């Protein structure tokens, strides 16, 4: 043969030839022709998050409470930034050079701490106005690495119900780590129903992949949009709130501190939940939030605090109804039991004062006139019941009733920040009094004072329970969620294990408290034509004037509304609590305030100023 075969040489030549063609083509592609380098820079896939619109919120009558408004965020992909004209940038966004520099310093910090990615877009500047958006969009081609992304903010149709609705804000780092759905800069419900129903309201984010050219302009969908997912709008929700009633309640509570909670006894639906002082929910939208939030937070009157669910107060005399029910059920009290009252209760050097009323009186009269002494006897009878071995046992029996009534624990409403109040047990007193205590030691519990704390929501629930004659449904604000069911627990009936016949003397007493003759504590609450039943309360307060309390429901035989009003430092229950509660009930049931006398009461309530008067004194 000798040497290499000719055909082998030809084959080798073809191979080498093709190899050379490849190398030449590679040279053209990679070194000679700059087109592809530009293409690569320009050929960036941009991931644009499609934010769904958040679900709308309606009140029980279908009035729109919360909607959405569009805003625009400037987004940045840090690794795509090239040097740009910062003066121009600042002018179109109304920024100072210092602010811009600050933003960049912050961005670098975030990149270092891996809060944001250099590859993925993150928020550079939040919430442009429509005009800024227009101007910036025009100039966008000059600022590589930046683009504008639209998203929505909340819009509140009424300046009311801020505590109920809560607010939406940027997600915290803690939450970000917990839920993979969110990314930096996303908005989530932080309090109120926005927080509770976040899952329903938020919808589902979508994502759109765009091809973007060298000037940051979108060149169409990436691979025909096959990887895109559409955003799914959040579900609309309907609240049980009556916005008219809510607004009226807020008006009545102006210049006062305290709260109103109104519920529909048959369903447990919250009709109004007022916490005073309140604020306009619009203050906490978007960029304004960072300015207004600290102001609200540092206000000495704590407007951010939702007193209706977050403040625990002594229930005062409204609690006598509870003690009476326990006594009746335990058999230590009969409707005909009478006690004498000599302007108070006196035993072993201890005295509980009372006011002037007829004596002796029976159970119904004791509610009507709110006799303190009657309940001192009454609680002692429960606690010293020979059925039980010792005070510890009988006290815990008493405590267990309270828990059944919804005291001492969170009711489980749809507000996450509800507090549980306080109901002591025997151990508690064992610790405090080193096991040496008796029914006399805890005597103030008989009139709803002492070591007992309830929230206004629990007090309203107490009203609903009495209105229902022995059961309640967990108070809740959600009425309907679009395309889904509300939580089953809101339909569950909670029995209190008090026999139904024990309610008549109590309810009658509450009716007489409003409608009775001399000695009745709440005659100011009379609403023409409506059989309202109520119980006043006046809670002693070591920090100042007594709190004015009223717990009521109406009408007597077919209760439509149960209400609790708590006015801090308002004095007697009949002074602020009873009139405000009755006005709320009247407004809700008749839609107006009927007689001139009632209108005069309304005017007095609206004008009543417990905040500024106090300041004048100081």
């Amino acid at each position, binding site marked *: 043969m000798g040497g*290499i*075969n000719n*055909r*082998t040489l030809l*084959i*080798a030549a073809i*191979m*080498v030839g*093709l*190899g050379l*063609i*490849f*190398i030449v*083509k*590679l*040279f053209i*592609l*990679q*070194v000679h*022709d700059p*087109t*592809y*380098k530009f*293409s*690569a*820079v320009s*050929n*960036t*896939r941009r991931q644009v998050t499609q934010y769904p619109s958040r679900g709308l919120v309606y009140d029980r009558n279908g009035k729109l409470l919360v909607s959405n408004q569009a805003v625009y965020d400037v987004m940045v992909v840090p690794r795509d930034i090239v040097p740009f004209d910062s003066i121009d940038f600042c002018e179109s966004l109304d920024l100072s050079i210092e602010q811009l520099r600050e933003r960049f310093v912050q961005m670098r910090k975030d990149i270092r701490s891996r809060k944001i*990615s250099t*590859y*993925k877009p993150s928020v550079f500047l939040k919430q442009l106005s429509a005009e800024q958006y227009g101007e910036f969009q025009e100039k966008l081609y000059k600022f590589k690495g930046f683009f504008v992304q639209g998203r929505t903010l909340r819009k509140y149709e009424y300046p009311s119900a801020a505590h109920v609705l809560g607010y939406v804000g940027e997600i915290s780092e803690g939450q970000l780590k917990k839920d993979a759905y969110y990314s930096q800069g996303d908005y989530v419900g932080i309090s109120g129903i926005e927080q509770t129903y976040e899952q329903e309201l938020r919808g589902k984010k979508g994502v759109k992949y765009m*091809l973007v050219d060298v000037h940051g302009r979108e060149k*169409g*969908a990436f*691979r*025909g949009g096959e990887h895109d997912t559409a955003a799914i709008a959040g579900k609309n929700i309907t609240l049980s709130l009556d916005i008219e009633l809510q607004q009226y309640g807020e008006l009545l509570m102006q210049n006062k501190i305290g709260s109103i909670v109104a519920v529909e006894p048959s369903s447990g639906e919250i009709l109004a939940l007022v916490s005073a002082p309140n604020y306009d929910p619009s203050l906490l939208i978007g960029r304004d939030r960072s300015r207004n939030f600290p102001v609200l937070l540092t206000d000495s009157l704590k407007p951010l605090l939702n007193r209706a669910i977050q403040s625990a107060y002594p229930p005062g005399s409204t609690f006598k109804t509870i003690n009476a029910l326990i006594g009746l059920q335990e058999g230590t009290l009969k409707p005909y039991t009478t006690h004498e009252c000599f302007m108070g209760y006196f035993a072993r050097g201890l005295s509980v004062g009372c006011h002037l009323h007829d004596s002796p009186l029976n159970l119904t009269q004791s509610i009507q006139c709110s006799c303190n002494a009657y309940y001192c006897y009454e609680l002692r009878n429960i606690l010293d019941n020979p059925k039980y071995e010792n005070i510890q046992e009988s006290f815990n029996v008493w405590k267990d009733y309270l828990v059944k009534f919804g005291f001492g624990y969170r009711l489980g409403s749809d507000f996450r920040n509800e507090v549980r109040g306080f109901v002591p047990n025997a151990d508690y007193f064992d610790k405090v009094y080193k096991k040496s205590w008796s029914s006399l030691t805890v005597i103030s519990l008989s009139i709803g004072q002492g070591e007992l704390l309830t929230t206004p929501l629990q007090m309203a629930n107490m009203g609903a329970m009495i209105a229902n004659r022995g059961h309640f449904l967990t108070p809740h604000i959600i009425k309907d969620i679009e395309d889904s069911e509300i939580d089953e627990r809101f339909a569950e009936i909670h029995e209190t294990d008090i026999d139904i016949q024990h309610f008549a003397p109590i309810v009658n007493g509450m009716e007489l408290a409003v409608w009775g003759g001399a000695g009745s504590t709440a005659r100011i609450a009379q609403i023409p034509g409506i059989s309202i039943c109520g119980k006043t309360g006046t809670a002693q307060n070591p920090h100042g004037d007594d709190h004015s309390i009223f717990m009521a429901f109406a009408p007597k035989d077919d209760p439509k509304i149960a209400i609790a009003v708590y006015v801090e430092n308002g004095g007697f229950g009949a002074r602020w609590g009873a009139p405000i509660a009755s006005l709320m009930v009247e407004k809700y049931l008749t839609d107006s305030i009927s007689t001139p006398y009632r209108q005069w009461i309304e005017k007095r309530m609206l004008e009543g100023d417990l905040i500024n008067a106090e300041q004048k004194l100081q």
Partner: protein
Amino acid sequence: MPNRSYNKSIDWITVGLYSLLVIFGWLNIYAANFNPENPVFFDTSKEYFKQLVWIGFSLLFVGMILITDSKFYVEFAYIFYGFTILLLVVVLLFGKEINGAKSWFEIGPIRFQPAELSKVATNLAVARALSRYGFSFKKFTDLVKASAVVLFPMLLILLQNDTGSALVYFVFIIVFYREGLTGYILTFGLIAGIVTTLTLLIPNSTILGLIALSIIGILYFKGVRKDLFKALVIGGVILGASYAVYEYSNSTIDLEYVLIPAILFVSIYLLSISISKRIHKFIPTYLLILWSAIILALTADYFFEDVLSHYQRTRINVLLGIEEDPLGAGYNVNQSKIAIGSGGLTGKGYLQGTQTKFNFVPEQSTDFIYCTVGEEWGFMGSTAVVLLFLALLLRLLYLSDKQHSTFSRVYGYGVAAIFFFHFAINIGMTIGLSPVIGIPLPFFSYGGSSLWGFTLLLFVFLKLDTNRNELIR
């Protein structure tokens, strides 16, 4: 030449080239899957980790191949071939369809493509057939037998709808050529390719005219002058007449058919002169080429429109520049070219690529792995890969020619030809020189089946090469 030892050691140069390609390939698979947001290495679900496992198995196979006696491959060539044919039939019946091709076996977590194995088996069978005593391509039966060995698995793979893998079998024509098949077939194939491509680009009438003119030119320079002149004058008259008929009859037939009568007349005239006068004996050959080209041109459109699937047609159209569709069919190639082009002279640096991340380039760790090389290693790196492959191919040709036994030589050529085809089509496709046919780049592309197939192919030859001075029977 007397030899001191029949058993020489394995060819370390080839082993070295193999190792370099596998290692460099793995580095690029790692890069293609590298997530700069979350750089983890030990993740068994990641392709680079699995590829490492496949490489491990490959080494095991290499060991097994090297301890097997060379005679085994000769003896078992047909059995092995028969077995893979069986597998190809079975996969056609029970296989799993992935990306439209029913070419995979799936057993638990392992997926396996018998088409990869069949390359080795077919190559062994071809080597066995061509090394049979007295085999010659001049004998028609031998030609048919050899072709059948190749066409049989090819057809089965075509039925699996895996066009890319089936096309590979065409490269055995190189082996056949080396072993004595007439060069005309290669030339003819080349002309056919050019004509087919042209028919898609320019109108048929123009092609027919061009073909006719080039044949006339060749005949002129071959010395056919007087007779050609006469023929052309008459041909011109016929052309004029048929064109007139075409115009006045308002005929709907295509313009190219107007040319046919004239070309037909000239052909017959020249043929009769050649035969009767016994001069210009080459004329029939050229007329055959002329008419083959005409028929091809007339049927190519039909083939293209009715035989090829829509996406194949679009891909070819895009390649030829007829259609421009940077986000559709041309998307892959466009992105691939952008990725490679953006690498520049020295590349963006290892793991620094942006185009071959985020799935800009599709199939970025399998068919389009070369993009990662181009982007991150630049012109230097991509050229180095081309040179490595060339070195491997030339080394294989060199070793093949050194084989004493025909079996080993033919097998060696087969290996070189298969590697060459994959190299040519895969890299050609990423830089826009060949249509997008989904076949892997040997040792680079992610995938166990292909890596094992290529390793098997290569190391069986290296084993045979250790006995190069023997006549393996």
